[in-house]
């Protein structure tokens, strides 16, 4: 099996996880199992701890209590460097790009060294061919939709086994959302990438997810398999 088609999948388990900022505990005793190769959608109103959870998994925020297991290995106490090495990729919501660096440099920074650069670039061109002609352009000069695609492309550079995505669809045209959705679907189907995605756009996220959960005040409020009634069920949680 060559590098490109090798299955890259991971199982993520959170056991009684607590985390937060300063003396504010935002995630409280949260337990969640994400199966290898599944797309898991995490929803909830703003300020309910979704981003905090991703940052904690990534090792950007200290884990206060509980355990995070990546496959069978303890994670979460490790730094983000080790998580990247373990093939976890993170697409953050807040200031997600180096605006003044070129597209090429933005993509380059996802890899620990330049050795696998050409290979990684080829891989992401497959999903977003426009990147190829515009490698030298500064990321800040891209349109909003192109920037979002670059964020996803950068997360795919390492061909991760676990992909964490924070609110990628906000303010995007439906056509761009479709391209991102098909890239994510393709990654999961061809290589079994596990995806944990935070989203507000239900039609987009329920189109790709297998299971979902709603987070409220740092704990899981409701969860289930994605089915025909899911959207209505979730809107109940999210509306005013």
């Amino acid at each position: 099996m060559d590098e490109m088609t090798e299955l890259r999948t991971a199982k993520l388990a959170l056991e009684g996880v607590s985390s937060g900022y300063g003396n504010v505990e935002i995630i409280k005793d949260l337990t969640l199992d994400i199966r290898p190769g599944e797309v898991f959608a995490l929803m909830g109103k703003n300020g309910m701890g979704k981003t905090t959870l991703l940052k904690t998994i990534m090792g950007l925020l200290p884990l206060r209590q509980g355990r995070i297991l990546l496959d069978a290995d303890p994670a979460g106490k490790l730094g983000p460097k080790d998580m990247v090495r373990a093939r976890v990729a993170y697409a953050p919501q807040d200031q997600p790009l180096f605006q003044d660096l070129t597209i090429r440099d933005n993509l380059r920074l996802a890899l620990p060294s330049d050795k696998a650069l050409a290979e990684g670039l080829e891989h992401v061109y497959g999903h977003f061919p426009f990147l190829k002609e515009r490698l030298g352009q500064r990321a800040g000069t891209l349109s909003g939709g192109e920037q979002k695609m670059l964020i996803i492309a950068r997360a795919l550079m390492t061909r991760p086994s676990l992909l964490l995505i924070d609110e990628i669809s906000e303010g995007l045209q439906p056509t761009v959302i479709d391209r991102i959705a098909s890239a994510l679907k393709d990654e999961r189907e061809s290589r079994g990438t596990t995806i944990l995605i935070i989203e507000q756009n239900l039609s987009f996220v329920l189109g790709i997810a297998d299971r979902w959960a709603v987070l409220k005040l740092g704990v899981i409020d409701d969860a289930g398999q994605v089915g025909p009634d899911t959207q209505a069920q979730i809107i109940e949680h999210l509306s005013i």
Partner: protein
Amino acid sequence: MTLLLDIATSAAILFIVATGLLTIFGVLKIINFAHGAWLTVGAYCAVAVGQAGLNPWLALPVAFIAGSVLGLLTERFIVRPLYSRPLDAILATWGLGIVIGQLITLGFGRDVQFTANLIPGTMDILGTSYSAYRIFALVAAVVLGLGFSLLMEGTRLGLSARAVIMNETLARGLGLDTAKIRTVTFMIGTGLAGLAGVLLTPLTSVDPTMGVAWLVGSFMLVMVAGQSFGALALACLLLGGAQVIVSTYISPILGGVTVAVLAAVILRISPKGFARA
């Protein structure tokens, strides 16, 4: 003509002296007040190389290595606990500067030392006879500036350092080893300061307190320049030029405060200095 050369070479010397400080401030947002001490260390490397009877040019690599090794220790033990307390970092590095100054005094005595001029004599520039070494300093500044931009723009380390400057949270999220980048940057900064110390020896007397005078000037220039080497070059040219003009036409003593006063005024008008330019 002499005035123009004076302006260009003075700016070049200021640039050489300030690069090490800017490197550290740019990436680490820490003002290394031991910068003067590192210049002194560099200059004394030149003294030591001279006393050992070696080729004076050898002082350059020796000073760079000495500077970066000391920088490694400083970053690890003094600066790292203080990243969240930038004002205290100024004080701790100033204290370190005192310590280094006293160690040098213990080793070499407090007298003025003399070193071999790297390039003695004068040369003709368009009919004007001018100090060959100052011309060399101009060349050295250009080489340093170009070399540094090559390092920042062309290498993986430079890219990582720029990423940390622009957005440290994101850099961490992408798995960059920010602690290592900080250490290496600090070492390069102090190494460059050592290098600058050697390059200063033919222009100034060497004694244990020589660094302090240069520290304040470089500090002001770096504050004006912000994080960009282009802006530093511009600041050196403008402020250094003003210094030469004031010294020549008004009074050398007032010339001595030109850089500081202009920097204060520029920062009052535009708190980010030339960083936006």
